[in-house]
């Protein structure tokens, strides 16, 4: 069954589409068939596009006429439901009917369409990207467990091979957490690298757009397609993206790895710790230098991101609170959105000042290192009904634990990628996290790609989706 198209990464699908041995229509039909068979249980899609087969036929016709526009031409991609789309409704995970979103393509969806991708459908998410659970989506490795969040539908759908790639968004870890818990690649590029206009905002200075894919090379393809100026996003960087995909095979010997031993290695599940140490050992074995470092200011990180995220989200949802719409939110999200008013102005700006401290300490580390390597999540997927877990002998809420290792790179805006680095005793995937300097995606992806090539965890398909 290794020939089945749904098992293959986009890099290979693109070659077959270009060689006319695979049509977009065949590909879309293969995924539609899988969605029909599996998503009743997985619950990762909010909706499947009724126009997707027409779009695939149009792509096939154009490819037959003039060849593919690029590697994404004819490739079906699914979209987190906080990106607006012209042909599909956007709900951002909320069931409050009074809140509606524009029927127009967000910047990223427009770029995907321009690259020839066909939009397969919209994926479930934790309401307004506030949370790490994404109900009712289930984890394909164990349907009794959560897929992570907030891009839980994106992680579950890619892991179950219901689409070869998905878009997610990441404010405190919402791409990398579901990637880690579902065993796929999740890329949060540098803040500003991918334009965000048309994504329902959560926290303006923390929100990042990015892809979830099966492989690092596919993440590089998506990054190249998505990066670039976005007139609708003041934070979007105008600089053209470097050709990251082409350089993935360049040697990593001599690259410098920093391991932040405080914060990132506190309270880790045993299997997670062992898998991450093995990955660090792999880089050492490849001729990278490995150095242990510390970021003491991270002890203030939780207060900083809480203040920024809560204040921003409260500002965005202010009219919904005044109009009483938040009463229709899920209880956890309603509490967070409404309590944001309790963050004072000075607290918010002090949080930004603390952010500068953490940024400076990270910059000092990255002046002597090319990448930072560590775990993406201290724990593997937890059971849906679990509220807390024991980590290193200490009880911690799953929500607090889940974003502890990802939010530092939202505060600092540094590029970070999560990719599988093994499985625990229950067969649940473990996530590795690699970060780099601002706009250092090329070296980060190279390190990730070469780890992935040597281990190929991505080839494991969840038994549920086999």
């Amino acid at each position, binding site marked *: 069954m290794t020939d089945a198209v749904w098992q293959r990464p986009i890099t290979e699908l693109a070659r077959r589409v270009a060689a006319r041995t695979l049509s977009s229509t065949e590909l879309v039909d293969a995924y539609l068939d899988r969605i029909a068979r599996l998503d009743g249980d997985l619950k990762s899609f909010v909706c499947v596009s009724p126009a997707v087969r027409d779009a695939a036929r149009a792509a096939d016709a154009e490819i037959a006429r003039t060849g593919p526009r690029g590697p994404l031409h004819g490739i079906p991609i699914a979209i987190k439901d906080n990106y607006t789309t012209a042909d599909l409704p956007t709900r951002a995970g909320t069931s409050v009917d009074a809140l509606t979103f524009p029927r127009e393509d967000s910047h990223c969806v427009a770029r995907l369409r321009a690259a020839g991708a066909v939009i397969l459908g919209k994926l479930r998410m934790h309401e307004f990207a506030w949370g790490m659970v994404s109900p009712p989506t289930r984890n394909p490795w164990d349907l009794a467990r959560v897929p992570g969040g907030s891009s839980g539908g994106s992680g579950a759908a890619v892991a179950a091979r219901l689409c070869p790639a998905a878009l997610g968004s990441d404010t405190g870890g919402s791409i990398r957490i579901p990637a880690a818990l579902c065993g796929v690649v999740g890329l949060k590029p540098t803040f500003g690298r991918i334009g965000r206009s048309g994504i329902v905002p959560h926290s303006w200075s923390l929100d990042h757009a990015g892809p979830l894919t099966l492989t690092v090379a596919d993440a590089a393809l998506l990054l190249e397609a998505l990066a670039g100026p976005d007139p609708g996003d003041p934070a979007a960087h105008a600089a053209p993206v470097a050709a990251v995909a082409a350089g993935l095979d360049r040697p990593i010997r001599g690259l410098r790895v920093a391991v932040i031993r405080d914060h990132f290695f506190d309270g880790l599940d045993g299997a997670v710790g062992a898998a991450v140490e093995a990955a660090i050992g792999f880089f050492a074995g490849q001729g990278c230098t490995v150095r242990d470092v510390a970021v003491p200011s991270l002890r*203030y990180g939780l*207060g900083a991101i809480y*203040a920024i995220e809560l204040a921003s989200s409260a500002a965005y949802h202010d009219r919904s609170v005044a109009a009483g719409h938040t009463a229709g939110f899920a209880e956890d999200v309603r509490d967070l959105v*409404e*309590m944001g008013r309790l963050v004072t102005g000075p607290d918010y700006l*002090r949080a*930004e*000042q603390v*952010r500068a401290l953490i940024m400076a300490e990270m910059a000092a580390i990255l002046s002597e290192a090319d990448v930072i390597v560590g775990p993406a999540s201290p724990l593997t997927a937890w059971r849906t009904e679990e509220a807390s877990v024991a980590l290193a002998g200490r009880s911690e809420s799953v929500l607090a634990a889940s974003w502890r290792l990802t939010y530092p790179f939202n505060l600092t805006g540094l590029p970070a990628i999560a990719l599988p680095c093994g499985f625990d005793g229950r067969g649940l995937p473990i996530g590795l996290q690699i970060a780099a300097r601002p706009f250092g995606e090329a070296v980060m992806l190279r390190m990730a790609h070469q780890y992935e090539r040597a281990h190929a965890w991505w080839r494991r398909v969840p038994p549920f989706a086999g």
Partner: protein
Amino acid sequence: MMELNTFSIAARCPRTGHLGVAVASAVPAVGGLCPFLRAGIGAVTTQSWVNPYLAARILDGLAGGQAPDAALAAALATDDRPDLRQVGLVDAHGAGAAWTGAGCTPAAGHRTGSGYAVQGNMLAGPGVIDAMALAFEDAAACALDERLMRALEAGDAAGGDRRGKQSAALRLVAGEDYPLLDLRVDEHGAPVAELRRVLEVARRQLVPFVAGMPRKDGPAGALPDDVVAMLLEAPGTRPGAAPAVPDPVRDVMGLHQEAGRIAHLLAQFAPVLAEIEVLRTLDLAHIHPPLVFDPSLPYRDVPLPVPHD
């Protein structure tokens, strides 16, 4: 049975014969269960593991001509657990008596003096009782309401109830079957200070009204015109009205949810606040936040002219 760990004073004014009790505690609504007064008979406060019937029996005893000590002893004799009770009283002549059972929570004690009885239990220390007595004696030139209030404030300042504070009350009777003053703060973070605030408002807006009320041995009559005029005003525009103080959460922070919802949000916010409070301890004045204002933002689509000289 409720344990009213409390500090209180029962007293009589030697000039007017008014009787009064002031009390504060770390339970809600102490004013409803502790003080019992009967005009022309006596003032009693019953507390600790409170038995309100003791107060009624003491007042009956005083009314029947018993001396305070005798009335107190007779009442305690009817109780199978006098060791748990604390009682203080004065009679219509200002003679005081008090009882602190051995089972009252320390620090516990009482003191009687000319025209008063001061008592308390579960106190921050024995100094509370002495501070109250001293404040009452020092204010001998003042009216009874002020003397009682000062005694309560002195007890509060000396540490008061060692669990904290929750409610306070001030009750005075003159010769009528209704109280001269009956003020309660039933649930408050600073109940004694709040009681003082209420007392100041009551002196301007309530005492003149009560002074003009019908008496049992005189003509019912009508209120003076200026009192009527004042009471026809809205409370906020009367003399002594507290300036409108905005509620910090509702009015200042703009959280307009109903009270229960706000309490829930505050509870949910507590762990976040704990993290934010750590940030407040840092000296960050020298750090520019990584927010850089960009005045050119709206002009990005329209390039700015290049200046030349």
